[in-house]
């Protein structure tokens, strides 16, 4: 029982997409989008990461158990970053920023 063998053309396509997206993230950084610069950079990075996970790491062809395992990790990462920022964000209401000498 061997795993799914992806065609070489798929890997080349994913590689090209990753390179184009890298150029896109650099290009987007030089455009003043205000607060959205960060959001755009993270959306592009998230999309690149998804391509790597889905095709290079074969999660697309993996079992539901493996897919659930991957999703669990991303879920807990979301909790870590989300609640962390909610915590620190709400503290901005009080003088929280450490004083600079």
């Amino acid at each position, binding site marked *: *029982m*061997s*795993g799914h*063998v*992806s065609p*070489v053309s798929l*890997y*080349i396509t*994913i*590689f090209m997409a*990753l*390179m184009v997206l*890298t150029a896109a*993230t*650099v290009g987007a*950084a*030089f*455009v*003043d989008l205000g607060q959205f*610069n960060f959001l755009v*950079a*993270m959306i*592009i*990075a998230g999309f*690149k*990461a998804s391509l*790597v*996970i889905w*095709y*290079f*790491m*074969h999660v697309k062809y*993996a*079992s539901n*158990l*493996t897919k659930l*395992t*991957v999703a*669990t*990790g*991303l879920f*807990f*990462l979301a909790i*870590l*970053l989300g609640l*962390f*920022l909610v915590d*620190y964000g709400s503290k901005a209401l009080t003088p929280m*920023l*450490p004083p*600079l*000498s």
Partner: protein
Amino acid sequence: MSNAVVHAGGHGHAHAEHPALQHHFDTMGQQKEAAVVGMWVFLLTEILFFGGLFAAYMVYRIWYFDAFAEASRSLSLFWGGLNTAVLIGSSLTMAMAVRCAQTNKRIATVNWLVLTMILGTVFLGVKVIEYADKFEHHHVPGYNFQWAEAHEAPVAGAEHAPSAEVAVAEGHRELSLNADQLQLTTQIYFSLYFTMTGLHALHMIIGIGIMLVITWMAWKGRFDEQYYTPVEMAGLYWHFVDIVWIFLFPLLYLVERHV
């Protein structure tokens, strides 16, 4: 074949047991599934490991955005971009190595693995160039850290050296932090820079070490289309390291480039 008794009437035992099949697994497929899930569980701990650093980065970036923007502009976009391309390329060669192992191409597997290791070494070489540059410019956190360049550093006895005016003169927007505050807060950025890229580089060194073993095993003919799990696991690890860099690159190099 004791399994044949348990699985009487089942299929998949037409041929002799694969030598790589451990006695506590019924089939090669089951054995591979266990390895894949186990590897992903390990990678999840790694995601949360780096996640803690990303969380620390986020808070300090929000607090001292101007310092992060200024410090980020001092990084070389050329080296950072080149390294991103090199690492994405190494992910492609790694995927090809796994594919060749799946299709039982021994020499091709070894060649793709060697190419992946070469690209990984190129990445680390570029990182050495970048780190050396940081040491030269006193951008390494610690006693000798000095944010302002020597020629624009406050002269002893001078009343003040408003970096905001310097920045505006250079065509940048006015910063909310003065020279002393930048000296403190850019150090936080570089602490995170060295911790995150250093931890990432350590993972790359470990990855190359793993690949050396895998390459040797492939050369010895340990793998075939039934059993290539070690190559696939090394691939998962390498792609994970690539993903970390996919996020590190915009976070560290592209904080605010448009001014």
